[in-house]
């Protein structure tokens, strides 16, 4: 066999790496374009703002949109304060001891638990044990625990990127630890915390398994009034109309998928762009 020269073998290898990258990335483009191509015709103001009709084979997806937004809103109200506080504890207060190691292990473990197991947990604790029923609040609490490790990790990264010297300068003036964190560290970590939070909001908007037994309903003929109501949710709605309902018009399924995809992707895109912007603008 002929041995390739190092230069040629490098060229060849880089080409292979390039092809692999394309193989990883092209499916994204294919998925997005299939959905846009088939779904764009179904999406209209009417589709977004009216109730489903004819066993969901016609009409709009308003209750599913409202349902998803309310679950996600409740979830972030719970998870962001807790997550940011936990990140502050780990980054600013925690000593290098056994407790800290256990907390870190717990966070890694929480991040790895399958979403459907969170669903089981939410069903057992919130729906049954606390008797909150299948409701927005049960779903939101389930999602907030699931998202906690992600928020903690990104917030910690943001806090960690604030230079240590800022803390020293403030502490040396006699300002207390908490005041230093509140008025020097947090303001400078805020952009990072914010973009991380938007990314995780996007992610939980698309989750189905955790709300399957805790919040989502097959069909609800009215919009939710309180957080104790069952709701329809976009991802679950998409699952139902694509697998459970026979003779479903294709363009409604694609339209629903498009709305869900755009909701999630636009939030993520905003977060990614904002992060690049803040990194460039950073003052230190």
């Amino acid at each position, binding site marked *: 066999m002929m041995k390739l020269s190092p230069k040629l073998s490098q060229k060849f290898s880089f080409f292979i*790496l390039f092809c692999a990258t394309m193989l*990883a990335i092209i499916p994204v483009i294919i*998925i997005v374009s299939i959905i846009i191509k088939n779904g764009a015709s179904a999406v209209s103001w009417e589709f977004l703002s009216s109730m489903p009709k004819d066993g969901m084979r016609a009409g709009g997806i308003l209750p599913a949109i409202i349902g998803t937004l309310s679950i996600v809103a409740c979830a972030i109200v719970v998870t962001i304060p807790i997550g940011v506080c936990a990140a502050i504890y780990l980054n600013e207060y925690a000593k290098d001891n056994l407790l800290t190691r256990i907390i870190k292990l717990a966070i890694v473990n929480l991040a790895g638990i399958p979403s459907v197991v969170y669903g089981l947990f939410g069903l*057992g604790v919130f729906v049954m044990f606390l008797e909150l029923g299948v409701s927005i609040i049960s779903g939101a609490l389930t999602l907030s625990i699931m998202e906690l490790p992600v928020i*903690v990790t990104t917030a910690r990264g943001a806090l960690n990127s604030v230079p240590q010297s800022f803390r020293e300068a403030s502490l040396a003036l006699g300002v207390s630890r908490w005041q230093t964190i509140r008025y020097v560290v947090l303001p400078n970590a805020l952009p990072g915390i914010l973009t991380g939070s938007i990314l995780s909001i996007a992610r939980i908007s698309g989750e189905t398994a955790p709300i*399957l037994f805790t919040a989502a309903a097959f069909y609800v003929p009215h919009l939710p009034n309180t957080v104790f109501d069952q709701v329809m949710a976009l*991802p679950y709605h998409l699952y139902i109309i694509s697998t459970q309902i026979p003779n479903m018009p294709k363009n409604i399924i694609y339209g629903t998928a498009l709305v869900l995809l755009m909701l999630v992707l636009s939030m993520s895109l905003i977060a990614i762009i904002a992060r690049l912007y803040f990194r460039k603008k950073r003052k230190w």
Partner: protein
Amino acid sequence: MSNDLRKFKDKFIEKIIFFCGILSIIFVILIFSFLFKEGIAFFKDFSPIKFIVGQFWYPASKPPQFGILSLIIGSIFVTAGACIIAVPIGIASALFISEVAPKGIRDILKSIVELMAAIPSVVIGFIGMVSLVPLVRSIFGIPTGLTAFSGSIVLAFMAMPTIVTISEDAIRSVPWQYKEGALALGATKWQTIRRIVLKAAMPGIIAAIMLGIGRVIGETMAVMMVTGNAAQIPHTIFEPVRTMTATIAAEMGETVKGGLHYRALFAIGLVLFSITFLVNFIADLFLGRGKKK
């Protein structure tokens, strides 16, 4: 505000922060104990050995059969298939992004990978169902495209962002002195990558693979939509399978709350929890080792 009040407020807030810090431990314990409680209740009525090695999952028959061997094998089939596809592509992409691509392109590629992670699993499952499944059926000439193979492809796609991002981190944190040393000796960039960079980044890459596996085992919706959900032990990857996650998701709605079937699903949850705990623990060990170097 008086100084004492200020100090009191500071102390109070610090207590809250500490509480939030340990909350994740509380959650893990809560989750485990809830699964454990229901699982133990199940094992009182059904032998754990029959549960693990039993071949038949007939929750509705009389007497019901709760053997999850076929579900475990189903999970292993799709997971293994997904790894075989995703690991080489993922590592190669991570190498390309961190070592070969120019900086402007690198940022774009990383953003796309991040967007990929955000696509909801039902959307991926739906697209898999309408485009991948028919394709698999016609290419391989099999009666149905809802197979372990389709599941593997879909899951490979879903594990990709995890594998790429974490491997990329590991590759980028290889000290530049290592690379300079090799390059100064006249090695080409590719030789340096293959012999030095890959070796130094290996703990991180292994962690990335483990975390990818964790993600794949736990994935539910997409896998439920493309694998056919037949609770039988498959002989080839071109047969329908059913995973543990899909079983929980598909059947929980029909169970009597508190009944044997309900508890059997919690017992499956307990098995899943234990597997992912182990996988993530190993990944964390490798990540820790990579950092210490």
